[in-house]
């Protein structure tokens, strides 16, 4: 890699050993992918993936301490993924004991480190930092140093920003030195599609299921999706962005997609159209049968596959304000149909603290509360990430949550049926 004099000086230790190590890490990381230069991070804020004070991450806290004690702090303020704990979310005594005293006993300590390093605010804990209510929304063309997979794929695809699928810690290092290696999704060539995905369904495909199918097929490649505009339009409306948020999270977790293009809709596809498709791109046709096949392929890893669900999580990634409102209407209507007053399975809708604050200002909040649904800023994935929860029959319409935990996937319609009308 060719470094500028200034970059070389940092690498040589002229600004201290710790900053030299940060630079060396990024240079080696870039060289592993053929990067020939470093480029400045140009977004206003960063976003970090590591939000949880897991006791087992001692080595990470030690590394953070080295940064803090030597003044090698983030040059940008940053938001961070959701907190792993929220007392609003149902849990029993044993779970609380394990969460607070065993698993996440370092939460307060780690949040202190995040503040020292450059945390944006007390409310900056969400995986959907790009929501208007949160305010960390990059502009088209800006270079980012993010790692949260669902946020990276959204920023690249829907906002047209440029970010690689980085790992935790690397995300922070990028804003400590203010630059990242130039490779992959930062380059024009790396943003070209090597897959054409043709949507030939007879109804609007479920976002989380479609994303899953595409992720599992193309893995880390860039897909160019044709035919989705028929179902979600050609404008990046609130509804389209929400759809793409959930779709993208599934592509990123069920595969390793960091960027997708939607024909006639996402910014680069609108500008460049099929010029974004590389010669020799493979083709994947998705029809109703293919989506059914993908859904049927998900393993059920509950001990008792017929168990009655004990909890339902919606909002991985966190829900948008409009999603919370739409689901309030849907839950109310379904409860009226079923003659139930409240949901029959404990249900948690998760969203960013900023989104929840705005939601609380609307009359929907009281209406949703009346249905028995709980709202929370928690990370469902972190909640599920312990031995007690792995034995719990939890349902979700999040394909990311399904992939990383024992939660069982159902479509939105099936979830609505289950939480309002009961059943297994």
């Amino acid at each position, binding site marked *: 890699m060719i470094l500028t004099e200034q970059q070389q000086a940092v690498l040589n230790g002229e600004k201290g050993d710790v900053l030299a*190590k940060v630079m*060396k*890490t990024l240079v*080696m*990381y870039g060289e*592993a*992918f053929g990067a020939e230069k470093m480029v400045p991070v140009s977004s206003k804020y960063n976003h970090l*993936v*590591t939000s949880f004070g*897991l*006791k*087992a*991450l*001692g*080595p*990470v806290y*030690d*590394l953070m301490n080295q940064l803090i004690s030597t003044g090698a702090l983030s040059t940008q303020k940053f938001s961070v993924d959701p907190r792993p704990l929220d007392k609003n979310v149902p849990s029993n005594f044993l779970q609380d004991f394990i969460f607070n005293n065993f*698993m996440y006993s370092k939460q307060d300590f780690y949040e202190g480190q995040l503040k020292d390093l450059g945390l944006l605010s007390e409310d900056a804990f969400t995986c959907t930092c790009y929501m208007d209510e949160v305010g960390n929304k990059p502009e088209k063309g800006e270079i980012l140093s993010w*790692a*949260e*997979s669902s946020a*990276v794929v959204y920023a690249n695809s829907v906002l047209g920003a440029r970010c*690689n*699928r*980085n*790992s*935790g*810690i*690397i995300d922070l290092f990028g804003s400590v030195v203010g630059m990242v290696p130039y490779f*992959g999704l930062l380059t024009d060539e790396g943003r070209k599609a090597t897959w054409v995905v043709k949507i030939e369904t007879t109804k609007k495909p479920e976002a989380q299921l479609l994303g899953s199918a595409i992720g599992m097929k193309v893995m*880390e490649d860039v897909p160019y999706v044709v035919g989705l505009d028929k179902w979600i339009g050609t404008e990046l409306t609130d509804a389209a962005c929400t759809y793409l948020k959930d779709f993208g999270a599934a592509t990123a*977790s069920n595969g*390793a997609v960091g960027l997708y293009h939607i024909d006639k809709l996402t910014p680069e596809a609108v500008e460049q159209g099929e010029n974004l498709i590389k010669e020799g791109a493979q083709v994947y046709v998705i029809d109703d049968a293919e989506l059914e096949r993908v859904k049927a392929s998900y*393993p059920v*890893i509950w001990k008792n596959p017929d168990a009655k669900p004990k909890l339902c999580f919606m909002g991985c990634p966190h829900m948008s304000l409009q999603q919370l409102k739409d689901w309030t209407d849907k839950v109310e209507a379904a409860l009226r149909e079923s003659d139930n007053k409240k949901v029959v399975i404990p249900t948690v809708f998760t969203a960013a603290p900023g989104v929840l604050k705005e939601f609380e200002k609307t009359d929907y909040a009281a209406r949703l509360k009346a249905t028995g649904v709980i709202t929370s800023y928690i990370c469902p994935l972190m909640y599920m*990430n312990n*031995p007690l929860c792995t034995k719990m029959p939890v349902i979700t319409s999040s394909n990311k949550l399904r*992939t*990383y935990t024992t939660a069982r996937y159902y479509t939105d319609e099936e979830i609505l049926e289950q939480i309002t009308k009961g059943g297994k």
Partner: protein
Amino acid sequence: MKEFKGRVVTPGTVTAEALVTHGGLNTLASFQKALQFGDKKATCGDQNNPDLYGKQMLGKALCLPQTIGSTTGGMVLYCACSMKRQPACMLFSNHIDSLAAAGAILADVWLEDVTMPVIDCLGDEFLEYVKDGMKITVKEDGNVVVE
């Protein structure tokens, strides 16, 4: 015996017993027991990986196509190395992915007493040839001997 030419991501030499996965290694799921529940042998906890589930990863020559899963993966690998619960080496048939590269490089740069050679681009034939229990020797130049 067969020798495969790879590319050095992080340097070092080692001889160890092969442990092979033909599917991607989900780093978070695989090392969860080692990190959270004090499993010093680093038993693979990924139920979705039939090649590795329940097997000890500590000290093995881990042969794999790539890593998959959460973008905390690099950080998890770094922690496993720091806690001395890492494989002896990681040998990728494909080009290394960004998460594994981050973990390996973080360990190489930030941990003075840990060596975990990482070689990538060994090719599909490598992963077809190598089997659990075979003796693996990693050389400084990225060549890998399987016997």
